[in-house]
Structure formats: C-alpha cells, structure tokens
C-alpha cells in the first residue's frame, strides 16, 4: 500500500508532463494569434504577447464568419444523415445476415481506403451531371456517401454487442425488421450515435479537399476560407493562427461537451473490433 502512495504522485507527474506535450501546440497557436504582426517572429515564439491583440481574431472572424455558417449548414445535416444511414446499415449487417452480407460489408469497408485525390475528376463530373455542383447539398451527399464505411463499421460493431435475444423477443411479439429497429434497437442506439456523430462532425468539419473542389466561393466551408486567409505569398501568421483557433472552436466545443459520452459510446462497444 505504501508503494501505491509513492506511485500515485509519480503517476500524476507523468500525466502532467504528457498534458504539457498535448497543450504545447495550443499555446503556440494562442500566443501567436494574440500578437501583432510585427511581434510575430520565430525566435520569440515562446514569448507572451505584448498585449491582447484581439483585432487578429476580429479580422479572422470577419473573413471566416460566412463560411462558419456554411460549415454548420454542411456538417450538421451531413453528420446526422450519415449517422442515420450507418445505423440502419449496421443494424442489417449485424442482426439480419443475408447471403453474401459479410462479403458485401467487406467491400463497403474497403471504400475507406480509396485515395480521394484520384477520384476527383469523375466525382466532379458525376456531381455536375446530377446538377448538384457548386452548392452545399452536393457536398453533403458526397460526405454521406463516403461516410458510409466508417459509420456502418461503428454501428455494426455496436449492435453486435447487443444480444440477439432482443431481436428474437421482438420477433415473437410479432414485430418485423423495421419494427424491431424502431421500437427495440433505436432506443438503445444512443452510445453508437454519439460516437458516430462526434467522429463524423469532426471529419466533415475539418475536411478540405471535397470542400474546395465541389463548392462555389459563396458556399465554401470554413476550411477553404481558412486556407485563403494564408494567402499565396506572405502569410500573416498572427491572423492565420487566430483564424485556425476560431475554425476549431465548434469541434472543440463538441469534444468538451460530449467527450464523456464519446467514451461511454466506445465502452458500449462501438469500435470493439
């Protein structure tokens, strides 16, 4: 027991050192974001700013605000719909084996690995041909589709941990496939939804490639606008880092508020292999 008492402070020390490692980059972003352009200098990067130059944030915000709205309009529907689709898929693949289901699931999962750069041309041609090029609905559709593998994987693993007796019991009570989902499994799906929503929200919010290829300037999400803050010649690092922090705020809020539910969802089996 005395060993425990000696070990505990050491554990705290270790955790603290690790926490410093994780917080260092944020310190750099924050401190540089608060400096004036003249102060921004690689050799003095660790120094605290001379004052709180909030005008960096104001400037970044003015340029990013319309695109933050676009990002919200993009990410919320896309994450929600892809979660719903993944839930249905995961339900079928885990509880309703049909011939070839495993093979098809494998083929779907493989979709996670395609390099997106190599399919940009046919993607744009296809999206343009169905009239969805340039606005957010096309981008939402693309994110839903390319989110199918990961959302299906997470939900399938999650539903696999729920005993098949539930399905059997529902059957005996006369419910069909959809009924069992609606009345029995969907109410139990919250942990799965939390994991999927957090994952998809983050992925879609931070995504750059599809965002820039598929939308017109007025519909650009914040990732594209943030890239444009940098400019192509001289980079105003203070504004750039302020903008990066602003663009990351919504996902940070999601993690802070929903973090423990993320963990609960994982504990409930969302990615248990």
């Amino acid at each position, binding site marked *: 027991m005395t060993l425990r008492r000696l070990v505990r402070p050491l554990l705290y020390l270790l955790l603290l050192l690790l926490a410093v490692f994780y917080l260092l980059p944020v310190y750099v972003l924050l401190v540089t974001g608060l400096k004036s352009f003249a102060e921004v200098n*690689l050799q003095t990067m660790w120094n605290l700013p001379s004052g709180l130059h*909030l005008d960096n*944030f*104001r*400037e*970044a*915000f*003015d*340029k990013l*605000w*319309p695109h933050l709205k676009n990002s919200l309009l993009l990410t919320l529907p896309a994450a929600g719909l892809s979660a719903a689709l993944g839930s249905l898929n995961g339900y079928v693949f885990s509880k309703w084996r049909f011939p070839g289901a495993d093979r098809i699931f494998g083929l779907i999962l493989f979709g996670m690995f395609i390099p997106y750069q190599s399919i*940009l*041309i046919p*993607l*744009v*041609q296809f999206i*343009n*041909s169905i009239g969805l*090029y340039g606005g957010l609905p096309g981008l939402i559709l693309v994110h839903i589709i390319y989110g199918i593998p990961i959302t299906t994987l997470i939900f399938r693993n999650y539903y696999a941990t729920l005993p098949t007796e539930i399905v059997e019991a529902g059957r005996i009570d006369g419910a069909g496939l959809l009924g069992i989902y609606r009345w029995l499994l969907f109410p139990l799906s919250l942990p799965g939804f939390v994991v999927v929503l957090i994952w998809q929200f983050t992925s879609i919010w931070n995504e750059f490639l599809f965002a*820039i*290829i598929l939308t*017109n*300037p*007025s519909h650009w999400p914040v990732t*594209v606008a943030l*890239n*444009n*803050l*940098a*400019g*192509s*010649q*001289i*980079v*105003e690092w203070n504004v750039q880092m*302020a903008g990066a922090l*602003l663009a990351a*705020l*919504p996902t*940070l*809020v999601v993690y*802070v*508020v929903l*973090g*423990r539910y993320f963990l609960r969802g994982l504990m409930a089996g969302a990615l248990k292999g």
Partner: protein
Amino acid sequence: MGKRTWLAWALLVALIASACGPAATPAPGTEGPAGTEPSAGGGEVEVFSWWTAGGEAEGLAAMVEVFNAEHPEFTLVNAAVAGGAGTNARAVLATRLSANDPPASWQGHAGQELIGTYVAAGQIQPLNDLYEAEGWLELMPETLIPLISQDGNIYSVPVNIHRANVLWYNPEVLAANSIEVPTNAEEFFAAAATLQAAGLTPLAMGEAWTAMHLFETVLLGTVGADTYNALWDGTGDWNSPEVTEAIEHFAAALDYTNSDASTLTWDQAAQLVADGDAAFTVMGDWAEGFFKGLGLTPMEGFGWAPAPGTDGVFQFLSDSFVLPVGTPNPEGSSAWLTVAGSKAGQEAFNPIKGSICARTDCDPSLFDEYLQSAMQDWTTDVVVGSLTHGVVANDNWKAEINTALGLFLADRDVAVFQSALATACAATGACQ
C-alpha cells in the same frame, strides 16, 4: 457536468466575443452576387485566381474597382483560392474544365504554363482581335509577345511583369565585411567564403520552389541568355559542359545556404537578410514589397542588384488572364480582359502589387524607386523567361525538373541531375 458546461460556455463566449466590434469590410465579391438581377448584356463575371491576401489581393481589388466603374452592367465574382503557386486553384480549375464549367476568366502565368496546358487542350481562345482593337501590339514589349503566343496566336493578357533574377542584400552586412556587390560567380563565391568565415549565412534560401528559383538564375548567369533560351526551345544541349558548370555552381551556392531552408517560406528567408543574419537572397522582385513592409529604406536597409552573371538580362514572369472556350459570359470575359490590359487597370493593380506594367506606357511616377529602375530595365534589357514561374516550360516538364531538383537537393549528385534534366527535356520538354 458543471465544470464541463462552464468550459463549453466559455468557448462559445470566446467565439461570440471575437465577433463584437466594428466589422471590417469583407473582401469584394467573396459573398457572391446575392440577389443581383442580370441586366441585358450583364450577369456574373467569375474571375479565378490565387490572389487571396496581402498586396496581391489589394491589387486585384483595385483593378476590380476599375472594372466595376467601367462596366457597371456586370457583377464581378472574385473566386480566388489560396495555395502556393496556385496549386489548389489549378486543381479546382482542372475539375471544372473536365465538367465543362469554366469561369469567365482565370489567372495563369504567361507562357508555357498556360499554353502547354490549356491551348494544348483547346480550352482557351486566341486574343489577336482584342490585341488589335486595343492597340496592345504596339504597347506591349516586342520580346514579350512571342513568349505568350503559339503559331502566331496570342493567348493571354499580361497584367504585370515581375523580375526573377534579383539579388537582394543587406548593405550593412556587406559594408561590415568589406564586400562589394558581386557581379559574377567568382565574386559571389569569394564574398560567400568571407561571410561564412565571419559566421553569417551567405545566401538565405527557403523551401523547395525557391531552390528552383535559385537554380534558374544560376543557370542563366552561367550559360548566358542565348544558351538559356536554346535549352528551353529544344535547340540547346542539356548534356553540355556549360550546363555541368551551372549545376556545379548551383551545388556550390547550396553549400552556402542556411541548413533550415526547407522549413522557411521565401519571406522568412528574406527576413534573414533583413535581420542581418544572412547577406544575400535570390528572389523575385515581390521581395521588395516585403522589405518595405518591414519599414526598411531602399539601398540602406536593403539593396538589390541583378543576380550574379545576369546583368543586362531581364528574367521575367507575368500574371495574365485568359479567355476560356465556352465561357459562361463572353461579353463579361472580354470586358474583364480589356480592363486587365488597359492603362487604368494596370496602373491600379501594379503599384499595389509591387510589379511593373506589362504595357510600356504606364506612368512611372506612380511607382517607387525599385520599380522605376525595373521599368527602365524592362525596356532596355534582353528578356528571357522564368522556369519556376511558368514561362519557359510547361507544367509536365517543369514537374519533371522539380522532381530531379528535389532529388539533387538530397544527394548532390551532379551527373545524375544533369542526365535527369536531359531526360526530362527529351521525354516531356522541347527536345522531343
């Protein structure tokens, strides 16, 4: 939940707090033409570029103002996308062109970058009629027109001219080490040796493309304008001893650069010169805007000279606009191009951007000391094109050279580099 909610609210408040205060004016046209009705002969003119910040964006905005004043019937949409040398913009453009959805005009580097890519694919139209109507054939320099043409067809409207072969230096550092500004390779290497012995970085360099920029000026300085042009039009020999010497000079120059070059942007490298940590840097004349932005006085805080061995030669690059095949607004595109090539448009754009007009009749008094000397050189010097900035080599060829150069930076094997350059010319360049 208490602590967590508090933190979340704090973050939200931070987000809202940064929104308080007087809103800055949004960049022109980035919101899109909300609710404008296209009048007869009007409509949107979507202009595609990579000028998103700093002097470039301001220069573009100034030219847009001229356009809006002269053509109120059109609404200009500024579709600028950032990314070094337009890498993102060109990707977006490629996908749009493959879907037959071109913008009304786009920015491109005048020369083979435009011609080798878009003319070869039949995606831009000749502008000879426009040039005749506007009288540009007399107003643009003679040596420029062939470089932006193919088979007698002129394909773009150059807005500005930048010079690539400029050696920037810190006069105080040179004075402190009793060094004269070098005019050729020997003088440069002698100066570099002295500076290195004194513990300074002789030559500041930045990331990959600045190495190519350095290489093209060394190549020009070693082989001379005629051989340089021959190498790019296919009549020269990349396996010749002159090219070997150029590569050896390049390798020697690299030995005098800062070890962290690959992590610096070009302006961070120029900062080394401004701070006195380095003596020289070879960079295009957009560096002047950077030095002035630091508050330095020309010829006191910073100085310039033609890159060693290139006195009397103007290695140029030019940003220009094109007329797409299948443009959604032919009249709008023409209107934009007319403004881009006009005296008013170029006089609005160039002093802010930090470049000189492509036209020869712009008013010198609008420009600063360096730019006036550049305007003078532009009319008297021999004009050759830049490699890094898309004049002399098309994209495919340039990419091959870039790969070979990157490998050379890693292993410094002169023979391998030279043979790779020769192969590149034969496989993807003019030597076919």
